[in-house]
Every structure is written in C-alpha cells, then in structure tokens.
C-alpha cells in the first residue's frame, strides 16, 4: 500500500512541477486573499504609520492573523483538491489508474499526500505573507508546527475523499465547497485556537487543540484508506 502511495505521490507532484498550476494560480490567489483581508479588516490589521490608531493598538494581531491564515488556506484547499481531481479526469487518466491494479488505499494516501505537500508550501507562503503584511510575530514553534502539520493532513485527507466523491460531476466546482467546508469546520476552529494560543503566549492551552487535530487526521486518513476503493468504483 505504501509503495503504491509513493508512486502516486510522485506522479501527482511531478505533474504539478511540470504544469505549475499550484505555483502559478493558487499561490497568487492566496496572496491576493491576504491583500483582500487587509482591505476588509482595515484598521484592525492595517496600521497607518502617521496616525495614532486606537483600534489597531487594542486588537492584538495574534488573535486576528490565525483566522486569516486558516481561512485563506481553506480556500486554497478547495482549489488544490479540485486540481488533484482534474488531473485524473484528463484523457481518461482516472480509468488508467483504476485499471493499473494499484491498491486504492495507496492511491488515496498518495493523492492526499500530494495535496498535503502543496498545502504546506502554501502555508509557508501564507505565514510569510502575514509576517510581512501584518507584522505577525511567530512564537511557540512546536505548537505551531504540530498543529499546522496535523491540520494539513486532516484537510488533505477529507479533501481527497470528497474529491473522489465528486469526480466526473459537472457541478463539482460548487459541490466541493459546500461539502468540504462544514466538515472541516473543526479543523479551522482547532487550528485557529492553537495558533491564537501560540501567538499570544498561552501555549499550554493550545495543546488540547493539537490533540483534536490529530484525532481528526487519524479519523479521516483511516476512512479514506477504507473507503477509497468504493469511491473509485466506476459509476
């Protein structure tokens, strides 16, 4: 199963490296979202150097920035998953995959891992952008890293499941968001909480959230491994 997973992971990543869709389309999208956040949360996030701003002074960036990062990541997730599904739909690649004899569980893990890798790259971009645009200051790296890693795995797992569910459907663009968003709400909640605690110094309170993220990741990784065979079945 793991060998098949590595095969699929390699394939998906190589396709991305060649097509550069995530790089050229999703990454700029993510940066644009950050900019739009600056507009929509003006004076909460954006400080005018010349003006003594009572609002910005009283709203700790540590509480706002995590939300932005996770929200932006959620939008990116939808795009990355849609792309992951679209790859299989081109030129009957999906049929080839089905017939290849690869273990469905392995295919699932491989695709989910590819999604996760792309998400992680985007997260680096998001965090860097937040530090640049909003003067966010990182702290408690262990908490941040573990929370982010586990959350990413969970998001990738769920996304890949739903991606397979909606593959081949014409209404996938609108269906995927409405399906994925409610399910990953706990991840957003936990991720934001963990980041807030990390950035505001209440590190101890952040770890329960990491545990929740781990449970989420385990639940949906397991589900994907068990159910992907059914998901791949020809409709």
């Amino acid at each position, binding site marked *: 199963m793991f060998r098949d997973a590595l095969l699929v992971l390699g394939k998906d990543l190589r396709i991305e490296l060649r097509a550069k869709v995530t790089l050229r389309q999703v990454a700029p999208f993510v940066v644009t979202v950050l900019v739009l956040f600056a507009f929509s949360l003006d004076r909460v996030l954006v400080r005018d150097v010349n003006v003594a701003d009572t609002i910005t002074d009283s709203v700790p960036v540590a509480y706002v920035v995590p939300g932005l990062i996770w929200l932006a990541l959620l939008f990116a997730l939808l795009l990355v998953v849609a792309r992951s599904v679209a790859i299989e739909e081109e030129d009957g690649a999906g049929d080839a995959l089905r017939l290849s004899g690869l273990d469905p569980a392995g295919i699932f893990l491989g695709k989910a891992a590819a999604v996760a890798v792309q998400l992680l790259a985007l997260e680096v971009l998001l965090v860097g952008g937040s530090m640049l645009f909003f003067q966010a200051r990182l702290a408690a790296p262990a908490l941040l890293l573990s929370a982010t890693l586990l959350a990413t795995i969970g998001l990738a797992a769920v996304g890949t499941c739903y991606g397979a*569910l909606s593959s081949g459907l014409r209404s996938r663009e609108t269906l995927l968001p409405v399906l994925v968003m*409610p399910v990953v709400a706990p991840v957003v909640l936990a991720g934001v909480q963990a980041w807030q605690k990390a950035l505001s110094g209440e590190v101890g309170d952040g770890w329960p*959230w990491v545990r*929740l993220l781990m449970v989420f990741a385990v639940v949906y990784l397991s589900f994907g491994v068990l159910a992907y065979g059914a998901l791949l079945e020809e*409709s």
Partner: protein
Amino acid sequence: MTTPSDQLPASTGVSGDGRPQSRIQTVSYLLGLASVASLVVLTVLGLFVTGPDEVQGEVVRLLYIHPATAWVAYTAFGVTSFAGLMWLWPRTRRPMWDHIAGASASIGVVFTGITLGLGSIWGRATWGSWWVWDARVTSTLLLFLLYAGVVALRQVPSSLEARARRTAIGALIAFLDVPLVHFSVKWWKTLHQEASVLQPSGVQVHGLQLVTMLFSFLSFTLVYAWLMIQRTRLARWEDQVLAGGLDAAIEARQAEAGSDLVGSSR
C-alpha cells in the same frame, strides 16, 4: 393521507377499488392518523391546558416542540448514516437502503432547520438575541450544513448506483464529523448548560409540563415515522420512473428506427 388509490399504478400493490392492499399502506394510514391526532393533543396541551411557567412565563411553551424536533433531527441523521452503511456493505446492499438514507436526510434537514428556527426564537425571547454562538447552537448549525450537503449531493444527476454510493459515503463522512464538531465547538464555547435533552439551559420542568414535553417526543416521532414511509416510497417510485422512463425512451427510439428504415427507401 393516502394517494387516491384508483390512480396508483399496479406496481404499488393497490387494488382498483381503493382498498389498501399492502400492510405498509395500512400502517402508513394509521400512522398518519396517529400523528395528526397526537399533534392536536400536543397543541391543546401545550398552548391551552398547561399554564405559563413561574420562572419563564409563556416561553416555556416552546419547550414542547424544540427538544422534540432536535431529537427527530439527530435520529434522522443517525438513520441516514446507518442506511448508508448498510448500502455500502456488499452483503446488505439493496436499493431500499438508499431510499431510506435519502428520505431520512431530507427529513433531517427540515427538522434541523425548524430546530434552529425555534432555538432562535427561544433565544430572542429568553436572552434577547436572535443568535448566540454557543456550543449546542453552533453544532446544530453545522449539522444542518453537513446534511444539506448530503441532500445536495443526491440532486446531482447520475446513475442510481453512483448516487447511492455518493450519498452513503457523504453521509458517513458527515457522521464521523459530528463528534469532532461537537467537541471542538464545546471546548470553544459553553453557554447552554449541562443539560440532558430533557432540560435544556438548566430549565426545570415538572408535572404537567414534563408530561407535555415527553408527549411531544412521542408525537414528533410518529410524524417522523409517517414522513419516512411516505418519503421512502416516493424515493423508490422516483427511481422507478427514472428506470422506466429510460426504458420507454429506448422502446420509442427503437420504434422510430423501425419506421425510419421503411421511410428511407425513398
């Protein structure tokens, strides 16, 4: 509560003279009667016989519906997920489970919506605001969105088997999410006090009020059961129409092709 039996197709097992032949028809009819009767009783009890609560005033009357609709909603989603699982399991896979899953999901969404609306009204009456981000309310809202997604999934045109598979898996993903949502939101906020289903917000209900509230559970469960029978049958028939419609179209096309051959000799 039954469809005019002289219009029902033979496949439904109803005789031409209108007497319901199958046991399901009888059960459904009786359930329908019982549901309406119990709702009438509930209304009389809830709005007239019981008096206002000393502490909460008239608003307590909402307690005669709200917990019951919530209970039906949760049950409906449990049924959906169970039915989905039964369909997915190869040994128990039958179209019936898909019909049950779809019916229950639809009913569940309706009842969750009503629950949220009632909760909102209750909140406005009790705390002054139409919405609170407390644990139970937020969880219920997410539950609504989760299963609205499952219902949306069912509307996508596809083969019956593919739709059944998607519904089942979608329902399972949603079902697995419910405890995760519950705990994450609970840790996040706590306003709705410790409560059993019977006593939300630490409200004390006793005597006739308690009886009425318990009766409401029975009443709405009857409604759910009746709706389930109706909706499951509807789902089955709709699928038959889909299958039959295709057959009819094929036959019609074949008939056309026959006359085409004749006509093209010109």
